Every structure is written in structure tokens, then in C-alpha cells.
């Protein structure tokens, strides 16, 4: 081992004192992955993440199905955020097939995407709560998520795996009276999540536990190529909805939440602030949406893409989610690669955990907005 090894990845010689803990995959604080943590007493000496336990070969599967058949299985990596996972793929396929989407479909997509972001974030927040031992914070978001899941069910017919976005628009139009129901539920949802500040974000024990733990500086956040809430908690103002507006995000008025601290607390607060902003976006989109019109462009059966490659990215619940599609003129993509926020944020984990206390491991780990299934794809 040379001297300039990256922090955290250079596992040291196993000393007598240093205990190697396998955290995961069957651990209440790990998710579907394994962290090989070396601890010296209460302090983590090194951490080596070991993802891949839920690898499903989505990218390889995509090479054998045509552009339409890829839709249902490509959303499987994050079923809670299925619209957002599908979004870059659909955008890329539209570019490859040369389809222009109608205005109403774009708004419907934005609404579905923001609802899905909230659904995912609530799930994430629930697990963050239970990782810190806060069982109420597990139950509340898990219950309030149902509000939005009901909305999505009305909208798409499915509770979690919607398969709603298709190249050329969305699968079906909004049901009757959807706008009113959506507005009411979203308003209640916003009121409800504002209450989380009382029990969770303003909780003194929580603040003292997560403040100044796992601090990722702005420079490091850029250097490590993190994305999403991790990046924005470190003070980088980068949100693809603002920076590279897709569909109709450039017509909506919202702001990006940026915090300076870069610690676990800031990282856990950014998604919550984003949810509040999402409510704002949904309300605007409902207002500006064309009241009628087609939501789907008719496609040829088994469409063939142009020869070439596209790389489209959207801001998902876990940060930038890119989809790189190489097409060779056949109905199937020649190569499909998803660049997911979870996997990009994983690089920060050994970096942050080194020198932390063992008690901080779950909070730092989960504050990276890491979703193991997405990272493994």
C-alpha cells in the first residue's frame, strides 16, 4: 500500500485491537448491502462498502427488450421513485425516436415526478428515523406516504410501480376531478410534514447527534462527484431541475434548497425541504397545466431508434439520475447504462465514516441518500 491511498479505502493491517465488523446485509442498519467496518473501540478506523447484493442486471436485461418493453423493469431499482427512475430513459428514447411530447403530458409528468419524489423521500425519512432510534419518525412518514400513494393510484392505477411514463407522454390521462383531489391532499400533506420539524428536526437530541458528524466539505463534495441532497447540503447549488430544465421545469417558479454545513443534519434536512418545495411545484403545475389535450403521442409498433447515443439526466429523489443509451438502429438499445445518484454518493461513505464513532454509522450512512437497490441496479 502506498502512502497516498484514499482515506477509508486503505484498510490497515489488522491490529489486535481492531475489530472487523460485518455490517450487513442482514443488519437492521445496513440495507441490502454490506459495510466492512473496522472499529477501534468506539471509533471507525476504516469502512469498505460492499454493494451488489441486489444486483439484478437491469442494464443487461434492457439490451434484450425493445424500447417499450423496457419500461416496466427499468423502474424496479427504486420502486418508490419509479417515475423518476424512468424519466431519463423516457427522455432519451424520445430523443432517439424523435418524438415531441405534448404540453399537457409534460405537466402530468412533472406532477407525477414530484409526487414520486415525495413518496420516496418519505420512505427514506422513515428509515432515517428508525436508524436513529426514533420510532415515531418511522411510523409517521410511512403513514403519511399513503396520501400520495393514493394520489398516484388514482393517477396511474398502481400504488408503487406505476410504469406511467412512456415515450411520447404518459400512459393515460388524469382521471376526472384529479386536480381538486390532488390539491387537497398535497395541501394536507404539506401541513403534515411541517409537523415533522416539531418531533424530529428540532429535537435537541437529534440535533446534537447529527450536527458536525460526517462533515463533507464543499470542495470534497465536488471532488467526490456526489450529487443530489448530499451535494446541496454541502453548499453547492446544483439542481438539474434548475440547471438543465427538462420538460416544463423552466416554466415553474421554485428554488433550490442549499445548506452550508455539510453534516448529517443538513443532509437529512435537504430532502425534507425539497418535499416542501415539491408541494409548491405540484400546486403550480396543477394551475398552469392545460386543462385538456392529448397526453400521448401514438407510437409505431416496435419503434427503431436512430443510430447514436444519448445521455439524459433528471433530478431524482437521490440526485442526478442519468441514462446513457447507445442505439444501433435496432428496436432494442445496444447498451443502456444508468448513472444513479446512490452509486455516486457511495464513494463518500468510506470517506465520511473514517474516524467517526460507531454510533454515527447509521445516521451518516443513511444521510447519504443511498438506496442499495438502485446502486446495484
Amino acid at each position, binding site marked *: *500500500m502506498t502512502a497516498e491511498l*484514499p482515506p477509508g479505502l486503505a484498510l490497515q*493491517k*489488522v491490529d489486535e485491537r481492531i475489530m472487523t465488523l460485518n455490517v450487513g446485509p442482514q443488519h437492521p442498519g445496513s440495507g441490502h448491502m454490506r459495510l466492512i467496518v473496522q472499529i477501534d473501540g468506539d471509533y471507525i478506523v476504516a469502512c469498505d462498502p460492499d*454493494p*451488489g447484493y441486489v444486483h439484478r442486471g437491469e442494464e443487461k436485461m434492457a439490451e434484450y427488450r425493445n424500447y417499450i418493453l423496457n419500461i416496466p423493469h427499468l423502474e424496479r431499482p427504486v420502486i418508490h421513485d419509479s417515475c423518476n427512475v424512468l424519466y431519463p430513459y423516457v427522455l432519451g428514447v424520445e430523443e432517439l425516436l424523435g418524438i415531441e411530447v405534448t404540453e399537457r403530458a409534460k405537466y402530468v409528468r412533472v406532477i407525477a415526478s414530484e409526487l414520486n419524489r415525495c413518496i420516496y423521500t418519505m420512505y427514506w425519512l422513515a428509515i432515517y428515523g428508525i436508524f436513529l432510534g426514533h420510532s415515531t419518525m418511522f411510523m409517521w412518514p410511512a403513514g403519511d406516504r399513503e396520501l400520495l400513494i393514493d394520489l398516484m393510484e388514482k393517477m396511474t392505477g398502481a400504488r408503487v410501480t406505476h410504469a406511467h411514463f412512456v415515450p411520447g407522454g404518459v400512459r393515460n390521462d388524469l382521471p376526472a376531478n384529479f386536480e381538486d383531489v390532488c390539491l387537497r391532499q398535497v395541501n394536507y400533506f404539506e401541513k403534515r410534514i411541517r409537523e415533522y420539524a416539531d418531533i424530529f428536526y428540532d429535537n435537541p437530541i437529534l440535533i446534537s447527534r447529527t450536527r458536525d458528524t460526517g462533515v463533507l466539505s464543499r470542495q470534497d463534495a465536488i471532488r467526490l462527484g456526489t450529487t443530489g441532497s448530499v451535494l446541496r447540503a454541502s453548499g453547492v447549488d446544483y439542481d438539474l431541475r434548475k440547471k438543465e430544465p427538462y420538460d416544463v421545469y423552466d416554466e415553474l417558479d421554485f428554488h433550490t434548497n442549499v445548506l452550508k454545513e455539510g453534516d448529517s443534519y443538513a443532509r437529512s434536512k435537504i430532502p425534507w425541504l425539497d418535499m416542501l418545495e415539491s408541494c409548491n411545484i405540484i400546486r403550480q403545475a396543477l394551475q398552469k397545466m392545460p386543462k385538456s389535450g392529448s397526453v400521448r403521442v401514438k407510437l409505431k409498433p416496435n419503434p427503431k431508434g436512430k443510430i447514436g447515443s444519448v*445521455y439524459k439526466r433528471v433530478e431524482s429523489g437521490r440526485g442526478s439520475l442519468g441514462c446513457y443509451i447507445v442505439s444501433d438502429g435496432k428496436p432494442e438499445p445496444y447498451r443502456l447504462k444508468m448513472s444513479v445518484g446512490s452509486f455516486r454518493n457511495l464513494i463518500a461513505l468510506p470517506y465520511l465514516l473514517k474516524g467517526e464513532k460507531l454510533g454515527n454509522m447509521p445516521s451518516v450512512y443513511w444521510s447519504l441518500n443511498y438506496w442499495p437497490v438502485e446502486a446495484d441496479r
Partner: protein
Amino acid sequence: MMSADKDKAAEEKPAAEKPATKEAETAPPAPKNTKSEPKETETAPPAPKDTKSEPKETETAKPAPKDTKSEPKETETAKPAPKDAKPEPKETKPVAKETKPAAKTDEPELPAFEKGISDKLVEKFGDKVAVKFVKKDRVGIAASRDNVHDVAEFVRDGLGYDHVESVSGVDYPQDKEIEVVYHIGSYTDPSLARQILVLSTRAQREESPIPGNDATKLPSLRDVFYSVEFHEREVFEMLGVYFEGHPDNRRLQRTLR
């Protein structure tokens, strides 16, 4: 080393750092799970037909002298190519499938900003890089494996890109090559916020990978862009491209018993 590790009993793999140390000094481990390279098996049989006049040695020679095989391609496509004067000349091969993802051919005007970026690159490197496509927000360039490190350094220092979003390996069995594509973006430069520079490079693909001695090698960009660390490990696991100079060149997932 990995295969040896696999054979050992359970208690024999205590040291978490062993794979790293050994690989770093000896040879890269082998792609022992062949599931990630099914393409090889399906298209492997074609004999070493050299459609192009590459002075490529026979496939069995695994040390794979670096320059000989990728240079000819560059010279072929190397025409300064400010406008993507289609790599089609090269694609005289019967199989049209493994064409490099070509740019839009019939786009009359190129976006100015993106054109500027590609022009800067061409100005700096001349015919060492080939501009594959220039379209809205995306610039695609290709570099040979010798130049990719320098190009990446220039992209970071001269152009202001600061992180790699994605490293994708694309397998071209008909070319006997594996393309590794870096999608490079920028957080710090606001004007580059929506730009992605697609830097691609190609390595020779082995027909029958030898465990522990991968001949498919590319220089690692980790010392240029720190963020490629896990991505390159993933490409190593999935496609068997060994990145020379990567300090932690393990498979992404630990060997399971």
C-alpha cells in the same frame, strides 16, 4: 488471488485489505463471474479476422502491447473533424452495427458553445482526439488509450469540468474492443452546468479472459477525477477492463463464499 480466496475456507478471508494489496502489486484478478460478459460468449467464435489493417497480433498474446492496436483506429478517424465528418468512412465494414455511435449527420448548425468546447480540445490535441458529435449540451470526443489521461487532465484544468458522472463500458464484440465512456460534468462552472462532455476511449477486448491477468487494460482516471473510483471498479467487475493506476482495483463486490 480472488480465485484462491474463493477456494479457501471461510475463516481464511479475514483481512479486508488483502485483495487490494495483492492486486496492486501483482496482477489484476480475473473476471471470474462470466455472467457479466455474456457478449463475449455469443460473439466469440469469429476468427481473428482483421477487417481493418491493424497490425494486431493474434488474440492469444495477452500482454497486449498498448499502442499497436488502438492507434490505427485513431488515425482512421483522426481527421480533425470539427464538424463531425462522420466516422462513416471507417464503417465500410459489412456490419453496420458496431459503428461508433455516430452523431447526427444532418444537423446544419452546431450549437456555438458546445462547438467552442470541442474546438478547444481539437486545438489543444490536434488529431489525437476525435470529435464524435456535438449537439445541444453534449460534446462527444474520443481519445486513444494513450491520450485519454492527458485529455482528461486538460478537460479538468483547461475546461473546468470537475467530476465524472458515469463511467460506462460498452462492448463491441465485432470490433474486438470495449469502449469506456466517461460522462464528465461540472459543478463549479455555472456556464458548464448543463454540459456533459462524453469522453470515450477504447481498449482491446480479449476473447478468452485469463483469470488474474486481464489483458484489457486502460489507464485509470482516478488521479484526475477522484469520482471515478467506484465507477471504474464497477466497469472492472462488469466488463473486465483493468484500470492501470487505480489504487484500489478490486471487483466491486467482495468474493462471496
